[in-house]
């Protein structure tokens, strides 16, 4: 079995995935067996097109400061962060913080 989720990159973060904003992801785990850690690992391996872009997404083993992570439109901080157990149908949004004005 696999877990089918949607991954979105907003705020210009789609630079790490060939300018593709929306990805349908098939995560090779059983339902209930994968957390955000496994998802982030999966994204790093399968979506980021150029390995030298990995540091744009990952720093010190987790999502880099300045990138907001939303699980079904809610701050992942409210959902357990890396410990959140992913489910089929979930939508994961990663967005760069913008500073311009």
């Amino acid at each position, binding site marked *: 079995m696999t877990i089918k989720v949607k991954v979105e990159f*907003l*705020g*210009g973060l789609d630079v790490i995935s060939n300018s593709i*904003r929306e990805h349908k992801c098939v995560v090779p785990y059983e339902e209930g067996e994968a957390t955000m850690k496994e998802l982030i690992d999966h994204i790093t391996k399968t979506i980021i097109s150029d390995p030298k872009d990995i540091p*744009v997404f990952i*720093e010190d083993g987790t999502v*880099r*400061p*300045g990138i*907001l992570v*939303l699980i079904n*439109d*809610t*701050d992942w*901080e*409210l959902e357990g962060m890396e410990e959140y157990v992913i489910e089929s149908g979930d939508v994961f*949004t990663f*967005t*760069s*913080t*913008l*500073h*311009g*004005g």
Partner: protein
Amino acid sequence: PSSPTTTLSLDEYKRYGRQMIVPQFGSLPSQLRLKQAKILVVGAGGLGCPALLYLSAAGIGTIGIVDDDVVDISNLHRQVLHTSENVGMYKCESAKLYISRLNYHVNVETYPVRLTNDNAFSIVSKYDLVLDCTDHPAIRYLINDVCVILSKTIVSGSGLKSDGQLSVLNFQTYGPCYRCFYPQPPSPDSVTSCSDGGVIGPAIGLVGTSMAVETIKVLTGYYTRENFKPFLSVYSGYPFQQFRMFKMRGKQKSCEVCGEKPSVTRDKIESNELNYGVFCGRVTFPPL
């Protein structure tokens, strides 16, 4: 402060009538709240211009504008409050000129200076609410810290290329602050300004305009401690325009400025012990 404003002139009734009849606005009491309000807009650029246009038109009583930059021709595609003939003028003065023609009921105060550790408390303390329309994280952290310490609500916007973000921070000292969302500054190489990265004028304009809507909601009392929910709204101009609201964390106990054991204090800021340029990875302040 001055005695409360309790009436409108006939001119003001005519001018503001069309917004006063919108149910969510809140009719006369809300219009009087706008008239009594004093707001500070930091940055009169791509975000600040539309925010200033709509907030002065809506009848905010006093608007302060901080910007030490002068109008450059490369600003004019998005900073629509400034005109070709004002190139070289301080942006805050150029903005004041137009606002005084648009709505002479508004008292405009200008600060053609950079907001710094030294002047931020004295400037911000004169106002009820701050719009963060700036262009770099260093000044965003400074504005945040000063507003938290002085108990001011922040309406915060940002944008780049064709994307934007909007939030209300430190809402009535009850909502989360910028540091609650971003405890660690971004690494300097991930920070891009509109001048460097480019921006579509009406895209950043849309975000500035949305800041004016949020400011009206805060000042008219539409948001209360009971109904306010921490949020970050995200605008994308391409491939199709959308503006989505994300539900965000509340105030963080661990926050360095609004948390239980704050390490960021007025003294540390005013003594320059806290250097925002260094904190954000640069030795000197970048321009607004």
